[in-house]
C-alpha cells in the first residue's frame, strides 16, 4: 500500500484514492451482508467508484474533489445500510472486522494473496516505471513528449483499488486510506530522489504497520486504529524534521 500510495499522492489522485477506499469498504460490507466474498464485492465497489468519478468529473467539468465529497458520504451511507442488513448477531464480529480490521481474521490464504499482490504490483510498476516517473513529474509535459498518460493513470487507480481491498481486513474500511497516504507523504518530506521514495515508502508502511500491531497487542486496542495512530505520529515527526520545510521557512524569513 505504501508503494502504490506514492503514485496516488504524486499523481494527485488522493481524492479518488480516498473515495475508492470507502467504496471498497461499502463493497466489503455488502459482501458480509449478502454472505458473498467481501473481497470480490470490495474490488467491484472500489473500481466502480473509480470508474464513476473519473469520467463524471471529466464530463461534468467538476473538480474531482467535488465529486469525491459527494461519493464519500454515499459510500459510507451504503456501507452502514449494508451492515445493518447483516441478519445474525453472530456475524457482528465480521462486521467489526470490516469496520476496524483485525489481524486475527487474516488467514494464510490472505497472506499469500497479499504477498502475491505485492510481487505483481512490483513487476507491473517496474515495466511502466518510465511513464509513471514522467507523469508524476508533470502530466501535461509527459503528454507533450508522446506518452499517452490516461491508461497509466487508470492503471494506478485500478491497482490502488485492488490493493486497498486486499488490505481491508487488516486495517478496516474506516481507516484504510491512512495506510495509503501516510507512508508516501512521510517519505516525500525528506527525499529528493523519486527512486528512493518508491523504495522507502513501503518500508515505512511495513514498519508502522508492525509497530502498530505490537502497540495494539500490548495495549489491547483495535489493530487498525493503532496502525493509523502510529503512522500519523511518524508523519507528524517527519513534518517537524523535514529539511524541505525548514528550508522553506528560512527562505521566507
Amino acid at each position: 500500500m505504501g508503494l502504490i500510495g506514492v503514485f496516488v499522492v504524486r499523481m494527485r489522485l488522493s481524492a479518488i484514492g480516498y473515495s475508492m477506499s470507502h467504496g471498497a469498504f461499502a463493497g466489503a460490507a455488502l459482501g458480509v451482508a449478502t454472505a458473498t466474498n467481501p473481497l470480490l464485492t470490495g474490488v467491484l465497489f472500489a473500481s466502480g467508484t473509480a470508474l464513476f468519478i473519473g469520467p463524471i468529473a471529466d464530463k461534468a467539468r467538476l473538480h474531482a474533489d467535488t465529486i469525491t465529497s459527494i461519493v464519500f458520504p454515499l459510500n459510507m451511507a451504503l456501507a452502514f445500510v449494508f451492515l445493518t442488513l447483516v441478519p445474525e448477531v453472530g456475524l457482528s464480529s465480521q462486521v467489526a472486522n470490516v469496520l476496524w480490521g483485525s489481524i486475527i481474521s487474516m488467514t494464510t490464504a490472505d497472506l499469500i494473496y497479499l504477498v502475491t499482490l505485492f510481487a505483481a504490483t512490483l513487476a507491473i510498476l517496474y515495466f511502466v516505471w518510465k511513464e509513471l516517473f514522467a507523469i508524476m513529474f508533470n502530466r501535461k509535459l509527459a503528454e507533450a513528449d508522446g506518452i499517452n498518460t490516461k491508461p497509466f493513470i487508470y492503471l494506478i487507480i485500478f491497482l490502488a483499488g485492488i490493493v486497498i481491498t486486499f488490505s481491508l481486513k487488516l486495517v478496516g474500511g474506516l481507516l484504510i486510506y491512512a495506510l495509503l497516504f501516510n507512508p508516501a507523504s512521510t517519505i516525500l518530506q525528506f527525499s529528493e530522489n523519486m527512486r528512493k521514495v518508491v523504495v522507502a515508502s513501503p518500508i515505512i508502511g511495513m514498519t508502522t504497520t508492525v509497530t502498530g500491531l505490537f502497540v495494539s497487542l500490548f495495549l489491547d486496542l483495535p489493530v487498525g486504529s493503532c496502525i493509523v495512530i502510529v503512522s500519523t505520529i511518524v508523519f507528524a515527526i517527519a513534518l517537524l524534521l523535514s529539511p524541505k520545510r525548514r528550508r522553506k521557512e528560512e527562505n521566507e524569513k
Partner: protein
Amino acid sequence: MVGFKTEEVNKQSKRPTIETIFKLEAVSTVYEGARRTAIKNVNLTVKQNELVYVVGPNAAGKTTLLETINGMLPTFKGEVRVFGLNVKTHGRQIRCGIGYVPQDFMVKPGEPYTAIDVVLMGRYGQIGFLHHPTEKDKAKALEIMKLIGVDELANRPIGKLSGGQQQKVMLARALAKNPKILLLDEPFSNLDPDSRGQIPMLITKLHQERKLTTVIVTHDIHHMLDKCNRVIVVSGGRVTFDGTPEKALPLVENHPHTTSLETHYH
C-alpha cells in the same frame, strides 16, 4: 487592432508540399472553456526551417494555437496536419517529433527529480512502451545539457535551480528527443538578466544549426527579430496578420503588448 484579413495573407495550396511541416486548415476550438481562449477559423502553413513569432495580447489564443498544433487540445474543428499526419489520429507519434516548452513552468523546491531526470523524460515517448532508457539515451541527454550549458547542474534537484536555469533545463528536455519542430511558449519570461541574453542566442543557434522549425509565442520580440522570417499576430483567437517582420512593424506599433518591436526598429 491590426487590420489584416487572414484570407489575404494565407493563400496556401490545399495539398501539403514536401517542405510544409505543419498546416492548419479552418481550425476552430470547439469548446470555449474558461481555462483556454478559443481560436477561430485559423489557417496557417509553416514550412521547414522557418522561425515564426506568434505575437498578440494576453488571452489572444496564442497558447491554444500552440497546443492545437501538437494535438494537446484535441477538441477542434478543421484539420491539423503535422509531418503530413493528422494530429487527431497520430497525436502521440507527432508529439514524439515536437519539442514543447510551456509557459511559466516552475518546479517547486523539494521536488524529488534531478535536472537530468527531467531532460531524459523528453526521450521517453521515443524510447517506447516497456523499454527503459539506455546509457545511450543518458549520454544524449547530457550532450544536449552541455549544449545548453546546464550539464553541470545535471545531478542537482530541479526545484533548487533558478528560474533561468529551470527554463534552460526545460529547453534541454524539449530538445532531447531531437525534434523537427520546437514550440516555445513565452521562453523569455522567468529569466535572470544573464539568461535574457543567452536564451535568444541559443534558440537562434539551434534553429540555424539543426534546421529546426521554431515557433515562438511571445510579446517580447525585440531580442531576435532580425533572425525571424515571419510574424503572426493573433488577436481575439484569430490570425490578424501573417507576414514579414518588416511589414509587421507598422501594423503592431500601436499594439500595447508588442511595443518592443518599436524599440528595436527605432
